[in-house]
């Protein structure tokens, strides 16, 4: 009963520490306008709008989609606001794809954004008034546990930090442009949350991302190649409970296996050409390679060490520079989906992986407990 859906337009802003030149509606419109232009469409062509962002407290606006409805051309149309913590950008694409797959709409605009410079995301991430330790503080123990479990050498995290920043130099939209990045610089950068160094952490960014999802007719009418959405899945599990494996959360394992099954993938490392994974701290690259069974236990860091995850490697991860180079939190998950889609569309520009046909987009959130994943393909099946 499910109909085919494809990403037919992708747009994003130039991400930066502060986009003081734009209001929040302006930021969203910059991304959405580019996605529409990419799809060869105009605002009236859109039938529904799905908006995602991380907690409202980050900018201090309750349900900001209500005022963004005007700027995003949503008035007179259905509008949904998704919120699934850090995975929200990924979930937003999936909710939008469901609107097309179900046959309800033919062309849906999905927009995700964050304007960290207009609020205090660190305060929000630390639980606001309830106090807390922030994202890095929450994830550092899991990273340490991974290092112990997998016997990974300390420099693996530095390698990912360097690789993603070098990739970002090929992405004009990326926030960080650190041409002089080196293993030494990462190692010598301040220790934020042991074992996470400053340069192993994502930046705080203003930015937005948008995609247009269309049905078969819309895909046939678009000027550029579509990225077919061949599999989507979401999984959630509670924040914490005795016996929970926070290093390799079961929700992440289940989510990955669900998309592989839908896409007919039995050997993800061989059958997926490129992956955009949500890596806000460098160690999450090997952790997700193992947590999504792309590498066997203890094999994720070896893929990094062997250079397999570089753009020219056997399994490129985050050729866009990833979350480590741009982190407009609510949009970060959608950027993974958008970049993965652009790879199979052949539209990734300088960071295009040669011959990419099948890609994986992934986002996670909360206490590594929310997962949203999708497989994109240059062909329908």
């Amino acid at each position, binding site marked *: 009963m*499910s109909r085919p859906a494809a990403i037919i337009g992708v747009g994003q802003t130039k991400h930066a520490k502060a986009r003081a030149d734009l209001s929040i509606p302006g930021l969203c419109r910059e991304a959405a306008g580019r996605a529409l232009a990419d799809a060869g469409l105009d605002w009236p062509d859109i039938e529904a709008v799905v908006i995602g962002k991380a907690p409202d407290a980050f*900018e201090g606006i*309750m*349900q*900001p989609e209500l005022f963004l409805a005007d700027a995003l051309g949503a008035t007179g149309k259905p509008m949904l606001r*998704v*919120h699934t913590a850090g995975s929200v950008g990924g*979930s937003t694409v999936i909710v939008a794809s469901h609107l097309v797959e179900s046959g309800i709409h033919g062309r849906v605009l999905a927009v995700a954004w964050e304007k960290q410079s207009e609020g205090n995301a660190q305060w929000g991430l630390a639980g606001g*008034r309830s106090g807390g330790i922030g994202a890095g503080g929450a994830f550092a123990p899991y990273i340490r546990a991974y290092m112990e479990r997998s016997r990974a050498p300390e420099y693996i995290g530095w390698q990912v930090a360097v690789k993603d920043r070098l990739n970002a130099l090929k992405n004009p939209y990326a926030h960080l442009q650190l041409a002089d990045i080196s293993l030494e610089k990462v190692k010598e950068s301040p220790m934020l949350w042991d074992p996470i160094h400053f340069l192993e952490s994502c930046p705080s960014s203003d930015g937005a991302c948008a995609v247009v999802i269309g049905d078969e007719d819309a895909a046939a009418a678009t000027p550029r190649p579509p990225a077919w959405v061949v599999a989507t899945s979401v*999984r959630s599990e509670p924040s914490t409970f005795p016996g929970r494996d926070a290093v390799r959360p079961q929700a992440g394992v289940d989510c990955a296996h669900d998309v592989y099954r839908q896409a007919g993938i039995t050997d993800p490392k061989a059958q997926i050409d490129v992956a955009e994974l949500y890596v806000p701290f460098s160690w999450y690259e090997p952790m997700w390679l193992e947590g999504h069974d792309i590498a066997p236990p203890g094999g994720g860091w070896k893929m990094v060490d062997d250079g397999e995850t570089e753009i020219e490697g056997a399994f490129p991860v985050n050729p866009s520079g990833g979350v480590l180079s741009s982190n407009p939190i609510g949009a970060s998950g959608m950027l993974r989906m958008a970049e993965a889609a652009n790879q199979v569309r052949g539209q990734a520009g300088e960071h295009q992986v040669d011959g990419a046909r099948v890609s994986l987009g992934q986002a996670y959130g909360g206490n590594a407990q929310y997962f949203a994943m999708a497989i994109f393909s240059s062909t329908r099946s």
Partner: protein
Amino acid sequence: MPATDIAIVGWAQTPAVARTDATEPQLCMQANLAAIAMAGIERSDIGFTCAGSCDYLTGGPFAFVQNLDAAGAWPPIAESHVEMDGAWALYEAWVRLQHGDIDVALVFGSGKSSPSDPAELYPQQLDPYYLEPLGLDPASIAALQARALLDTGRATERDFAEVVARSRRDARTNPNAHVRDEDDPERLLAAPYTRNPLRAHDVAPVSDGAAAVVLATARRARQLTEHPVFIRGIDHRVDVHQPGMRDLATSPSTADAARRAGLGDAPVEVAELAAISSPQELIVRDAMGLGDGVAVNPSGGPLGANPVMATGLIRIIEAARRVADGTARRAVAHATNGQALQHNLVCVLEGES
């Protein structure tokens, strides 16, 4: 409209109160377990779960994450969340069920508003550049809307009082409502204005509470219950945000959603409307074209209990209840999001034909 018929097979709500010591996850747990029990399913039967809530009500970022504990998310579940009333979570689950690979979904909506002050909170729901600095609270916006309606000559303050009186009388028979005070229109009209032309009773209370619904595909629904309540049509539309750019005496998005949900295809006997002020009920009735023969808010409606983020989902539950028990052959539920009826959802329900 897609072809797959989806039915409501279970529901539950917590008794709404002005303030509870229970946590929001506890409220959700109570509603979810009762709805699952009513549907006669196991938790493992649920293929998709969707929740609706708003962090700002409790005042903590990621407040919704704790509600996951009430969804039974171990082993991990396919789950999503909207920062909206649970009625929109129901919409998302209805969309998900169209795919045909799953046949049961759990939906819940919850709000614990008691920790926050609406007058302080809701200005932050408005355009942060142009409106939020004005400190416009919900009662003031409701009053602007009420004035706009009075100015059309289509309603009087007595009409507002009649809506309140009827709602309070009906709330007396609803164990989940908590406002059942004065119901004599004359005495209501004698009360002082709080925001001219509105009196305190014209605006819905703010309550703590949660509600849950179990949805199933038609085939599965007929196995689960003798009285499935089918979603015959569901649609939602959003209007312009800026109140100054809207005719507040009308609700075009409600009218459009009602038309697209097929409300006009056949008469309804019951309408449950998420009007959070007495004038709003009149505006929504008008937008939907409901005649005098339609029983509006027989539950007492939001003027009797208003657990924000569950209020819309409860309208669907109250309408479904009346279809299931034979009071209505066809009923309509309405949910709203934002201020002055900015975003509206219409859901048409019918029993087995």
